[in-house]
């Protein structure tokens, strides 16, 4: 008995405080118990109706499938809309300035907070599943669906629900004012609608094609593994982003995100290479390249909004070993480190295709599409050109008037201005002959998205323009980048401070 008590105490101590709090609130509140009762009633009524009132229940071989479809729709709707709303709104309320006590006056780490919210919300999903699964499994007896299909579809829906919940947690973590809060909620709702409709659509298709019968095929397991990896990747990214949102600004907020993205990017590269070697298909490699271009482009555009100087907290964590320090520079928060990280991602992404084209697995059926490679390269040049120009403008002209977090806005304004203004100017200059104009496309040179839809001749011109601009912008930034690298030095160590001890209050 003593051993059991000790084990219970140990488990209790190990439990995440947020999980304990959330589950206690869920048990004591009306929302979750109401939801569970609602499910029980709806399922009883649905199955009861199918059994009692269906005229051809004995001859209809699709009753089970129809009932399952109906119940799955309700389950998905509840878990993709109501549960994320419940979790997200509560977290947003707890994070709001008027409600500081629950999450941010204690020593709970951002990781504990996000993981606690994540685990608690997934436990709620399991609770709801536990009320649904017996009824959904029962639909097998009504015919039209087999048990493997039921469990496969429920597992697939669980993955989609997990993504939806983490999306809501991430949205709740974004610090925003009243106006942007509404926009944030609207965008999140839009994303959830897309997730709901795509999941329900996929589930319906899978039911009709009899997914349970493919369970022994390689395609099924390849698809299942891909889906699990994709969902886990999305959940991981959302967790990392949520963490970055709630970490203190003085912390190295960007490090977990860059490490995660670098790891995923490298793992996918290895998988794509392996896949090309095994199957001879280079589509996966090409997709990886497009993803890399998006990653480096978003990375460089986002990085210019990071700070230029490290506070004492960051300086204390800079490694003393020169080798480690050089490597870690790319993973420390800062505009220069972000730009160099994005540049490295871009270079390493294109290198295998151009420098090591001959090293591609011998089994590939065709070389990667050169137009795609060239277009991706030019797009990447545009991203760097705009971001580096914004960085220069920010430092040279707007140092005092624009806050550091808004430097990315300058880059985006440059993109919008560069895309629209030349076209407008060109239109007014060549008003009479605009549509038949030979050099129509040259007015589009400022538009990075034009390379996605234009002819190869235009892309060559765009490459000269964007490549030249990116090189000039990089050259202008080099002194500053070198200065940032040189300034990346560890702080002088302070004598270790004695951590405060937690003791029983003196009044006890």
């Amino acid at each position: 008995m003593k051993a059991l008590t000790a084990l219970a105490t140990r488990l209790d101590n190990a439990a995440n405080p947020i999980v304990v709090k959330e589950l206690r609130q869920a048990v004591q509140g009306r929302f979750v118990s109401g939801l569970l009762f609602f499910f029980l009633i709806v399922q009883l009524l649905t199955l009861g109706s199918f059994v009692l009132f269906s005229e051809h229940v004995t001859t209809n071989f699709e009753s089970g499938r129809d009932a399952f479809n109906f119940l799955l729709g309700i389950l998905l709707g509840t878990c993709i809309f109501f549960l994320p709303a419940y979790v997200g709104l509560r977290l947003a309320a707890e994070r709001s300035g008027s409600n500081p006590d629950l999450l941010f006056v204690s020593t709970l780490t951002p990781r504990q907070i996000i993981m606690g919210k994540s685990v608690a919300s997934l436990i709620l999903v399991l609770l709801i599943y536990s009320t649904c699964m017996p009824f959904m499994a029962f639909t097998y007896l009504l015919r039209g669906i087999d048990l493997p299909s039921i469990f496969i579809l429920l597992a697939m829906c669980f993955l989609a629900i997990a993504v939806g919940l983490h999306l809501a947690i991430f949205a709740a973590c974004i610090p925003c004012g009243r106006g942007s809060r509404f926009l944030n909620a609207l965008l999140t709702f839009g994303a959830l609608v897309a997730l709901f409709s795509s999941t329900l659509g996929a589930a319906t298709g899978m039911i009709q094609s009899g997914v349970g019968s493919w369970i022994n095929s390689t395609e099924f397991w390849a698809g299942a593994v891909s889906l699990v990896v994709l969902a886990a990747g999305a959940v991981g990214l959302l967790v990392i982003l949520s963490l970055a949102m709630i970490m203190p600004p003085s912390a190295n907020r960007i490090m977990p995100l860059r490490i995660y993205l670098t790891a995923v990017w490298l793992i996918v590269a290895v998988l794509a290479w392996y896949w090309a070697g095994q199957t001879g298909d280079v589509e996966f490699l090409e997709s990886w390249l497009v993803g890399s271009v998006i990653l480096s482009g978003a990375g460089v555009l986002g990085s210019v909004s990071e700070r230029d100087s490290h506070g004492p907290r960051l300086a204390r964590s800079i490694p003393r070993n020169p080798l480690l320090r050089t490597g870690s520079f790319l993973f420390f928060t800062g505009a220069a480190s972000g730009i160099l990280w994005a540049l490295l991602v871009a270079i390493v992404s294109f290198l295998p295709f151009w420098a090591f084209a001959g090293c591609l697995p011998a089994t590939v059926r065709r070389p990667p599409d050169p137009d795609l490679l060239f277009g991706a390269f030019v797009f990447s040049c545009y991203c760097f050109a705009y971001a580096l120009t914004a960085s220069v403008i920010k430092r040279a002209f707007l140092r005092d008037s624009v806050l550091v977090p808004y430097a990315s806005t300058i880059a985006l304004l440059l993109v919008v201005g560069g895309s629209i203004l030349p076209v407008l100017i060109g239109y007014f200059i060549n008003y009479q002959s605009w549509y038949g104009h030979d050099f129509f496309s040259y007015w589009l040179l400022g538009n990075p998205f034009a390379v996605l839809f234009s002819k190869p001749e235009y892309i060559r011109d765009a490459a000269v323009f964007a490549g030249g601009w990116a090189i000039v912008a990089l050259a202008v930034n080099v002194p500053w980048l070198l200065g940032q690298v040189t300034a990346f030095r560890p702080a002088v160590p302070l004598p270790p401070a004695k951590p405060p001890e937690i003791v029983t209050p003196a009044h006890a």
Partner: protein
Amino acid sequence: MKVDVAHLKRYFGRTRAVDDISFSFASGQTFGFVGPNGAGKTTAMRILATLDEPTDGDATIDGVSVVEEPERARRLVGFVPDTLATHHDMTVHDYLDFFARAYGIRNPHRDRVVHSVEEFTNLLGIREKFLNALSKGMKQRVSLARALVHDPPVLIMDEPAAGLDPRARVELRELLKVLSRQGKAILISSHILTELAEICDGAVIIEQGRILRAGSLNELLHESAALRTVIIRPNGRGDELHKELLEMPDIQAVRPVGHELEVDLAGSDETCSDLLTQIVSRGYRIYEFRQRRVGLEQIFMTITKGEVQ
């Protein structure tokens, strides 16, 4: 244990909520943080409690920066906000237990700590009540209990007495005295200055984000002593004395209040003594002659203008 606030600034756009304030207080001291509404008290306190980031400057608690090491600073601070937000579906005991867990206090120690805090703040009788069913006074006690769960050496309290009935206010005052005797450094903001004066060792007076005066209560009273008020109750000939007082060199103003005269006088204790000698030497008989002690409220009213940004 010392709390040092150094050149703290917090700007919201063009509004300078906190504009370069510096002060310090130490263990066993209770400091009042006084200012009109919108003066920047809550903003400064939120920064000290690591709930907000300063635009510039820093504050250290026992050498731990609230900007650079907020996680460590939180171990050292207990923050009592002006209102306890409504948390649904949570009992008082669950709330305190959550914070004990959050501060890493493990069982069986945790149960003892929570029980002792509930006992100290007189919450044992309502520990199973839901938070949203509590009165304002009870919520303030819960808030204080939450701030004490990890036994922090520094307490930051933002308007803890606001909206409390007289009994709850007296109870809170007694709790604060006990905590101060235990050696906690307490920074407390309140608009009830008479009560603040009873429990505080010092005060920081702030307006429009800037510190107007800061120091121990004695220092503040001494600084304000250049202008003092003397109450004189003459035995007849009040009007005559009134006129004569107005002709005397250090007298700023004379106000008849019933049978008494309130005299504003510029100078020191010596000047008061000279005044009494002069009055008596001119043949006036005096029943009562006393200086009115300047309180925190008077200092506050004298040096603040009640302006907001």
